[in-house]
């Protein structure tokens, strides 16, 4: 991507409007908010499993699981239960932040390796 295009994407992110229907709470949350299920629209195993992994890595989280309730509906359900120090929503947000930081690091490391060279550039 050229420098010019990068600027355009940055601006687009700042001006982005967020879809109010993208994610909603499902029935069955505890009163204190430490256990909740979320439904995310237009996502699948790609985000579901990666996000589940990062949320499960949180020591404050007792349980996290995801499911695609029906293969012909583009919905993703995520269940989070915490030990009580944080809410399920906080656990979700920490998971998303972790995933974002992880991707940033993978991209940086990959770019470093590409610049460092030392690999073959001919088709095998």
């Amino acid at each position: 991507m050229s420098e010019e295009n990068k600027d355009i994407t940055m601006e687009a992110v700042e001006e982005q409007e967020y879809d109010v229907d993208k994610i909603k709470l499902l029935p069955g949350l505890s009163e204190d908010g430490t256990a909740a299920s979320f439904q995310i629209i237009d996502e699948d195993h790609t985000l579901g499993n990666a996000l589940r992994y990062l949320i499960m890595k949180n020591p404050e989280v007792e349980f996290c699981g995801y499911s695609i309730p029906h293969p012909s509906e583009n919905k993703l359900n995520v269940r989070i239960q915490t030990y009580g120090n944080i809410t399920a929503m906080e656990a979700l947000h920490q998971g998303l932040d972790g995933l974002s930081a992880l991707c940033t690091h993978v991209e940086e490391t990959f770019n470093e390796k590409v610049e460092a060279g030392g690999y073959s550039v001919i088709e095998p």
Partner: protein
Amino acid sequence: MEMRNEPKKYRYHPKPQIPPNMSDIVGIEYNRVTNTTSTDFPGHSSEENAWDLEEFKKNLQINISHLAGRSTNFDLINIDTSIANAFRRIMIAEVPSVAAETVYIYNNTSVIQDEVLAHRIGLIPLNVDPDTLQWIDPAADENERFNDANTYVMTLDVSCSKRDNVPEGTTDPKILYRNSSVYAKDLKFVPQGRQEQLFKNSPVAPCDPNILLAKLRPGQEISLRVHCILGIGSDHAKFSPVATASYRLMPVIDIKEPIVGELAKRFQKCFPSGVIEIDENGAAYVADARKDTVSREVLRHEEFEGKVKLGRKRSHFIFNVESTGAMSPLEIFLKSVRILKNKADYLRNCPIGQ
């Protein structure tokens, strides 16, 4: 040589106690796999295993084996399956690319049906940077949907005719007729509006010019117009920027007891060449486990029972990405990482409805 085709008898498989240094290895046995799931979560063992970005940064390794115009092979080491699989899935289904979407057929007197021809045209990879196009607005009226910012137009106009002065007895249709075969290169770019300036030196064209689209005989002709737009692989495979994007886990061959002499030579033959070599003492050693296909041939021979353990390293992914030609495989992978990041960032800022 004793061949073992059947397991001797049923046996009870207790939950294996996995030694700490083996926790990262998926075991591959004669007819079963062991230790298949990740257990690096808090509360699973005495280790902390909490998500730690600094720890991840310290451990993550990327090795690029080759990076060419059409394909790449690289290793992602110390990353979880869920993340590696997300990158793989995004490369196949969510990295956008340009393909023919609408084909307007004016005339087609060839033997290939309109819809089959349109399908074949759709599958031709186009050599164009997807970042130069904007997304189509599906809500827009069909007459206003396509413009110079979101559509490339190509035309295909060919007709077949007899050639004069062909030597007697010729049977090759390529010599007998003009345009007996229609190729992807016969698609001609028709710049619209600003595209005239933007593509003055590099017209939109198929990545592979010699893809056969149809065959014609004298008197037959094809005349059509194609609208090429941006799309993603989950909508239609023609929009996928990769021919393949796959990973495998790094094979592990653990020789438990020395294998020497004639036995070593037979042992070597159980693996693809280059995997096992024999040292000056006649003992077999693992030279390059990466080359192994994990065929498990060695486990079929009783003479090696207990001498070798096969496995795969759970956190070592060997990616192989082949581009269709429009984008470099490097760009495809980096875009997949950015798309996953954008998904997380977008969802992070989304209001949560009730």
